[in-house]
Each structure stands twice: as C-alpha cells, then as structure tokens.
C-alpha cells in the first residue's frame, strides 16, 4: 500500500528500536514493564547469552501473542467470528485457543493494532518459529536457529506488541466502528467516501463490522447498524468479491434461522436493494464445511502442522463430493495451504486428501476461484511469494490446466498473468504478481 494512499483508519505506530541495536540486552528495555516483567527480561537476556535461541524465541513469541490475543478477545467472540468469517467461533469459545497466530496477526493488522510492515515481520517470524519447532532432534542439532533469526523475532515482538503500553485498535477504527452503531451515515459523508477509495481490506472489514453489529447489537444500536448497512453495502456491492457477498447471504440465513426478526428484515432490505438473494445459501450445510476448512487452517498454522494436517484434510475430503458455494473460498484456501505447504515443506500424508478434493473441483468452480477468490486470499498469495510454495503452485497450475482456463475466462489482468507465469515456470514473476495483488488488497508485501 502506498503511504499516500487514502485509508479509513491509520494503524498505531510501533515502538522504534534503533536499527543499530542487535543484541537482546539493548532491546529488552524497550519492552513495556506491564508486558515483560524485570524477571522476564533477565531471563531473555540470559537465554540469549547462553545461545538458547529456539527456547527464548518461543518464550517471547508466546508472551507477545498471548497479550495480543487477550486484547483481541475484548472485542467479543461474535465480532471476531464475523471479522474472520469463522462461524465455528461462538460466545463459549476461548479466543486464546481458537484463534490461530496467523489469524491474530491478520486481525490485528486489519484493526490497526499493528502496522502492515509489523504484521509482515511477525508473520515471517511465526513461520520461522514453526519451522524450528517441528525439526527432529537430529535436524535441530544440525541446523539450529541463529542469533540473527532470534534477534529478528525479538525485535518484531517488542516493536509491535511487547513495547506498546496498551495494545488497542487504531483510534480511527474505534471511531468508525462506534459511528456505525451510534450515528446514521449517508453516502456523501467523508468517512464513507474514504472507505470507498480505501484498499479492499478496509471495505471488506467495513462489511464484516456491519455484519457483526447486526448480529450482536439490539434496540437503537441495531436500528442504526441496519440503516448504515442499507447505505454502505449497496455502495460497495459491485466492488465486493464473491466470498464477501456469500458471507452477507449466509448472515441473512443464519439470522432468519435464529429467529432474529428485526436484524433479518434489515438485511433483507439490503439484499433486495442489491438483488443479492442469489448469495443466500439454500441451506446452512455450508457452515459445516467452513468449520472443517477452518480446522485444516488451524492445523496448518499451528506447531507440528505437517503431523496435524492429514486428519482434518481427510475429514473435509470425506464430507461429500460438492462443496457448497458459500464454503468454497475458505475450503480452497485450506486445501491450497496443504497442497502448497510452506517454505520448509509439505505434509506428505495430507496430500492425497488435498488432491482428492482438488480433483473434484469443476471447471466452473476454478473460474470462480480464479476470478473472485484468489485475488482476495491473502493466505495463498503470501505463499506464492515464497519460493517453494510457488514451485508447487506451478505444478498445480499445470496439473489442472489452469492457464487455459485463465486465458479464456479470468477477467483480472494480474491474476491472469499470475497463472500464465506460473505455467511458464517463472517463479520470480509469480512472486511479483502475488505481491502486486497483496498490495492491491491493502496488505504489505514487503518490509519498509
């Protein structure tokens, strides 16, 4: 995202540790005393001095992510469920347990808790940590984590999370969210116009905030949220990708099924305005598929992913031949995460299930995926920026003849090129085009 680009809310700035600092002793004073106690700091410095890099990195990471998740949990399970489009998260869910680290970072970035660059660095740190966490004892002895790698992680955690006095969403975000339930917007207002010219993830977040408010508020707040949904969603409709349209349709069906008459009637008006009833699912079977896909993503993004991926992938494979369309984007995201793996490898045992699912994807569904889902799927796009997953993507593009499909039926130029370059085996171009799509989406593709 260009720094001159208009955005609906600006992220909080990180704590800056001078770039010349490269040891733990200099860095830990930048951590906030509420987040890292004196004892924690001493232990961290001591572990660095004793070269226990994997151990200290795990410790720092756990501290940082626990703190971040605890703060995100204050937003409420229903809000988080909607923001991440995870219907499996409900009021009885423990956010600390159900939210993967990847999702926590993404959500934190979307709410302006951390900057895009901060999120990118933390994601890279997470992947490195996951890699070292699953090495066998022999491998760990042969290729241990280096001091530089551990210092990088420590810096990212302190600058973005542990150094903050208070972890909270961006002020503009809070103002916007409050406004959606407390005042009535019209289409000409500055904030709405800013949203319309913001990158996609702000627009997606706005729709998700509105849906969360419609599902959780009552009385006057609900009336305001519904009135605002009736102004904002029609303005955004043509820009929204299929997954977001399906999320709206599913929210309508869920509210009707739960007997929430006022909220359902409000969303019905929105859907009538945009002629969006095609996106209302015929049944709520899709929710089961979404839950199954999220189980795969959780396995993929947690420690020991190569061992944990086969079971949920098999479960999704066994669920049935046709994935309901509202669940299709997240199912594809999950299956591609398994198939593409990460920079350090793939789960071999999960491949046959992932391939079995992919083989059942019809040509029409591939067209939908390439046209509507891929360009907004940050998970998969970030993978395509890495050498090894990008090489597996090339195999997949060839195996399913996606270049032919893309050349004929994909409208987005960058996506079409991405497929063509993958077919040609040009991984550096695959990297660049994925980065371009990520930037267009509003996330960061490179450190600043």
């Amino acid at each position: 995202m260009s720094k001159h680009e208009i955005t609906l809310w600006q992220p909080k700035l990180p704590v800056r540790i001078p770039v010349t600092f490269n040891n733990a002793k200099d860095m830990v004073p930048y951590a906030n005393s509420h987040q890292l106690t004196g004892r924690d700091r001493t232990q961290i410095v001591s572990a660095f001095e004793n070269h226990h890099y994997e151990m200290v990195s795990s410790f720092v990471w756990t501290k940082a992510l626990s703190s971040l998740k605890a703060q995100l949990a204050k937003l409420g399970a229903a809000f988080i469920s909607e923001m991440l489009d995870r219907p499996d998260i409900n009021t009885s869910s423990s956010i600390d347990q159900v939210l993967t680290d990847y999702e926590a970072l993404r959500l934190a970035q979307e709410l302006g808790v951390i900057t895009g660059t901060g999120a990118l660095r933390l994601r890279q740190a997470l992947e490195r940590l996951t890699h070292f966490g699953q090495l066998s004892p022999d491998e760990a002895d042969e290729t241990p984590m280096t001091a530089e790698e551990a210092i990088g992680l420590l810096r990212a955690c302190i600058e973005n999370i542990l150094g903050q006095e208070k972890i909270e969403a961006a002020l503009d975000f809070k103002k916007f969210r409050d406004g959606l339930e407390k005042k009535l917007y019209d289409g000409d207002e500055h904030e709405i116009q800013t949203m319309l010219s913001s990158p996609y993830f702000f627009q997606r977040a706005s729709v998700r905030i509105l849906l969360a408010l419609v599902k959780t508020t009552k009385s006057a707040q609900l009336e305001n949220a519904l009135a605002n949904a009736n102004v904002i969603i029609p303005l955004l409709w043509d820009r929204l990708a299929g997954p977001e349209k399906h999320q709206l349709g599913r929210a309508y069906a869920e509210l009707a099924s739960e007997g929430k008459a006022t909220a359902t009637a409000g969303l019905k008006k929105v859907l009538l305005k945009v002629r969006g009833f095609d996106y209302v699912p015929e049944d709520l079977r899709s929710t089961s598929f979404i839950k199954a896909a999220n189980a795969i993503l959780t396995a993929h993004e947690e420690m020991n992913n190569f061992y944990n991926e086969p079971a949920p992938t098999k479960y999704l494979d066994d669920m049935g031949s046709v994935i309901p369309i509202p669940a299709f984007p997240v199912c594809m995201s999950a299956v591609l995460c398994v198939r593409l793996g990460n920079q350090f490898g793939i789960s071999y045992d999960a491949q046959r299930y992932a391939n079995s699912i992919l083989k059942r994807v019809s040509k029409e569904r591939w067209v939908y995926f390439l046209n509507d889902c891929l360009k907004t799927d940050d998970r998969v796009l970030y993978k395509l920026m890495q050498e090894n997953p990008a090489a597996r993507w090339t195999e997949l593009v060839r195996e399913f003849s996606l270049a032919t499909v893309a050349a004929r039926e994909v409208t987005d130029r960058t996506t079409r090129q991405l497929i063509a370059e993958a077919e040609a085996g040009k991984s550096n171009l695959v990297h660049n085009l994925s980065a371009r799509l990520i930037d267009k989406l509003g996330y960061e593709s490179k450190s600043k």
Partner: protein
Amino acid sequence: MPTHKTLSLREQLNVAVVEFLDSEGMSCPKTRDGLVTLINALGHYREEGKALFPEVFVLDSLNEALSILPESEHVEIGEDKKQAATMAKALKKCAPLARRGWAVYIERRGGMFGYGLFRSGSTILSLSPAELLVNRGDPAIPVFMLRQVAENVIQVSGFSHSSLLVHFGATKDVEVSPLPKLNDFIACIVRDVPGEIQEQVGSFYMNVLSGVLRAGHGTLAAVMPTRRRTVPKSFRDGITISPRISVPDKIRQMLAKSDFNSNAKLQACSALITGMLLSDGITLFGSDGTVWAYNIFLKHPKGSESVAGGARTRTFKVMCELVGKDLVGALIQSQDGRIDFYGKRK
C-alpha cells in the same frame, strides 16, 4: 303481512376485500372473488370433520418469495384457470397438507392460478414465511396472507401492512382480534428475559399460544414476577413443575449448538407447554419466560357466583384481582372463543 329477509355478508365482504387489495396494490377482480370465497371457507374450515388451520399466501412470484426464505422448498399441486373456483379448489387440495410449517400458496400467473405448498426454515426458531413475507414484507415482493387467528376470526394481511379482520359473529369491533391481547400477554412472559434472546422467546410463545387459541378448547394462563421464588399460596392447588421449565435456557442452548438435538428438545418443550395450556386450570409462567405450574385451580371468593359467565370467567376475575400483587398478567380464552388479557407491561 309476513316479511322474508335474507342477510348475506357477501356484499360487505366484497367491498372490504376490494379496499384491501387496492391498498396492497394487488387489485384484480378474479383475486377479489377468490379471496371472498377463501375467507368464507376458512372461517370454519373442516375436512372429514377435523378442523384445519392453514395459512394461505397469495403472491405474484413464488420464485421471488422463495428466494428470500432461507432453506425453503415447495411442492406444486396444480394449476387452473384464474377464477374463484380455482382458489377454492387450491384450498381443498392443499389445506389437509398444510401442517407443521407447510403453508398454501396461490400464485397469480397470467390467466392462471398455480397452487401448492411451501415451507422454509430448519428449526423451530426459524422465521416463518408470514414473518418474512408479510409482517416484514417489501413492495418488491407483493403478497398477502389469510389465516384463522381464532375461531371464526379470519385475518388477511398484506406486505404493506394493511389488514382485514373478518369475524363471523356478533362481536364488538374491539373484541375481534385476539392478537393485541396475545402480544400483551407475551410481553409479560418475556418481560425479564435477557434482551439478546427476548425476540426468540417471544416468538416461541407466540407460536405456542396461537396454536392453543386456534384449538378453541379455552385456556387460562397467568404470569408471575421473577422476584418470587415460589408459587404463590393461592396457586398451589395444581401441579408444580420442578425444576421449572426454562424456555430461555433451551433457546440459548439451541443457538449455541444449532444441532438437531437441541431443536428436538425445544420442539418437545413446545408440545409440552401446549398440552399444559390445553389442560383444565391455570398455567403459570414466570416473567423470565419459565413455566412454573399448570392445572391450577383457584378458590373463588364468596359472592363471586354472581359474576356473569362460566367457571373459567369467574377464575379470570379472581386472577385479575391478583395482578399487581402475585401476578403481572392474566389471559383467558373462554370456550366461546372470547379472549381477554389483564395486566401491566413494564
């Protein structure tokens, strides 16, 4: 010289129906004739001696209506010339099947009426077609609905909120519709239910009580404030349920789990409460949506024999005197179909 006079409500009904259709923007002479026929038939609808209470929807596009009804399905039964007789035929063919969530549709198609049955929703809490198409209807999907709301009382309501109540009796205007009284009574039952599920608990009781009123057996029900921890002394001649049935808890469980098991439990709970309300005596609710006791008999104070009406009416008078003390609201449906409510909303 003897005079012979025939009194028919048809003319009057015709005028009212024309006005209703005009206000809904659904004017059509064939629909008008058919609607008069349907209203007349629904007032005392029976098949093989058994009373039936179908909901009948007349609409211009079944597909559009189904598109806004989540998890909907339909079964086409037939199609015939656009005339009143086809509407009557549609009712005869479809009414016996219009039970347990199925409703009758009549679709206006050019020169024809198509008819059949449709339903929507997956759980007992799902919003009904009446709620989505009519109560919260939209001009984009013109539709109106007829149903019997109490014995001899037919309600016709449209998407733009016009309504027509037809009572086949000699009741005063203000007594015709039972719905405002029913709404007031339900407001008492859900008065202390937490806001996030108040709507669903209210809708649950609306379904239960509507079914009870249609059955026409007569019923007595009362609501006591939640601050009370035990059944009031005067209500102890009955069957106290222990532990009491908490409808809000069951609804909360169902919303959290969304599984067949919790839906089945809620359905079973609905059947049980319906049975209680159709039993003799009073059914006692808490203002937090719970059921405390049923089959309760109150002692009538001396001198109450002079009150006009039967035993149920006399009991209702006694209950009314307890409102503000042991009770927050009381409801009666006497055997002649009359419905009354006394109580205070918060």
